[in-house]
């Protein structure tokens, strides 16, 4: 056992950590405390291996935020300036080349976000930029852009006794009928944590430059796949309301909040467009897509969490 207390089994390779996330066995040479350790370590088999090494340089498109991307055959590669390069192959291997100055938290954000998102996509999951919760056993996903309150929504429902399924990166099984449990962590801003009664100062920051904190827990997390019942597009409004949206709009919303959209047009061009299109259309047709509106004062008004839970339960009961 190392002095820093990181868990390690004696009968496995030196420095190899064994985790479960998205119901996959993940072997990693990087410490990833966000993921759950496997109950019984075995070095024989894993679904995804995460290793450290050099990624061969390749022409890539780099955007103004310093994010690079290229895709070729069964390989896709994401890079972030000053953080590192992440080469994902056939949904089985993530090769990480860290930048020499990269903080570990920043590396882990990229591994458990974009890199794992690409691996899940390559494995045939449909990925969404969303958080998901099992509300009375029904899988509901909250879709939205950066800072739309996806994690906050998941946190307040978890606080009311509903199990978290995923945060930020949501994976649907191939059929699109159920949501796969990701890992038991929520990334929350300090104001959200305070209103949930947690002290932000004692929680690890997700990134040295970000005030967002990682809330990790053992309870209140889904232990198996949950049937997908609703997709909620988040919005701000005066009251808590849930309204259905026209099918074409629903289709467009899913297109926009597909997790892969962040990798840009090169990634879209690499897809089997026909299959991708039919999958999204099927989701729009079979899963009710609603707009969930709530006041911006979500955190300061203690009555709102209950109102949201009630509105969702009522919506679920209506079908």
């Amino acid at each position, binding site marked *: 056992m190392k002095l820093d207390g990181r868990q390690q089994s004696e009968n496995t390779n030196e420095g190899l950590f064994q985790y479960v996330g998205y119901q996959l066995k993940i072997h990693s040479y990087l410490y990833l405390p966000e993921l759950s350790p496997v109950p019984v370590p075995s070095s024989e088999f894993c679904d995804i291996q995460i290793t450290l090494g050099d990624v061969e340089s390749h022409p890539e498109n780099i955007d103004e935020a310093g994010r690079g991307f290229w895709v070729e055959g069964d390989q896709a590669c994401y890079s972030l300036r000053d953080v590192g390069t992440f080469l994902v192959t056939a949904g089985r291997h993530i090769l990480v080349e860290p930048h020499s100055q990269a903080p570990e938290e920043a590396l882990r954000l990229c591994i458990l976000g974009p890199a794992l998102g690409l691996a899940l996509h390559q494995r045939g999951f449909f990925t969404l930029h969303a958080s998901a919760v099992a509300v009375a056993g029904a899988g509901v996903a909250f879709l939205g852009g950066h800072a739309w309150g996806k994690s906050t929504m998941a946190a307040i429902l978890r606080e009311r006794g509903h199990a978290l399924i995923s945060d930020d990166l949501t994976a649907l099984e191939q059929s699109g009928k159920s949501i796969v449990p990701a890992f038991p962590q929520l990334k929350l801003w300090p104001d959200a944590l305070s209103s949930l009664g947690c002290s932000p100062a004692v929680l690890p920051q997700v990134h040295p430059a970000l005030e967002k904190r990682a809330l990790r827990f053992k309870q209140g997390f889904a232990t198996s796949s949950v049937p997908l019942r609703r997709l909620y597009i988040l919005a701000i409004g005066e009251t808590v309301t849930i309204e259905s949206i*026209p*099918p*074409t709009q*629903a*289709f467009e919303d899913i297109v926009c909040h597909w997790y892969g959209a962040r990798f840009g047009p090169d990634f*879209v061009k690499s897809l089997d*467009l*026909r299959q991708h*299109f*039919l999958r999204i*259309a*099927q989701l*729009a*047709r*079979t899963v009710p897509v609603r707009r969930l509106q709530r006041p911006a004062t979500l955190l300061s008004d203690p009555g709102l969490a209950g109102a949201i839970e009630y509105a969702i339960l009522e919506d679920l009961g209506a079908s």
Partner: protein
Amino acid sequence: MSKRLTKNSILVVSENQVSADVSPDPAGQMIILDLQNGTYYELNETGTCVWKLMQKPVDIQTMLDTLLAKYEVDAKQCESDLLLLLDDLITRGLVELKNGENP
């Protein structure tokens, strides 16, 4: 009547597209993806009805008969609307003319 279309013209959807119904309603709501340029198109209810017919080669007269049986519309208006739509779909390469001429 449009220059290139007659009531006997036979039309079928092209290979360069993929389409799907995104609505749970029986009337449907068809979305078409042009695979050559990645553009999406959305069809209204009558457009969706016609599009479903064109999954197999079908002549314009049959389309007209179907629409007139299904919707309470003026026959002349229906015909000119239909030809406008079909002409547009052909121009965009989403629909192909199987036989341009009368037999």
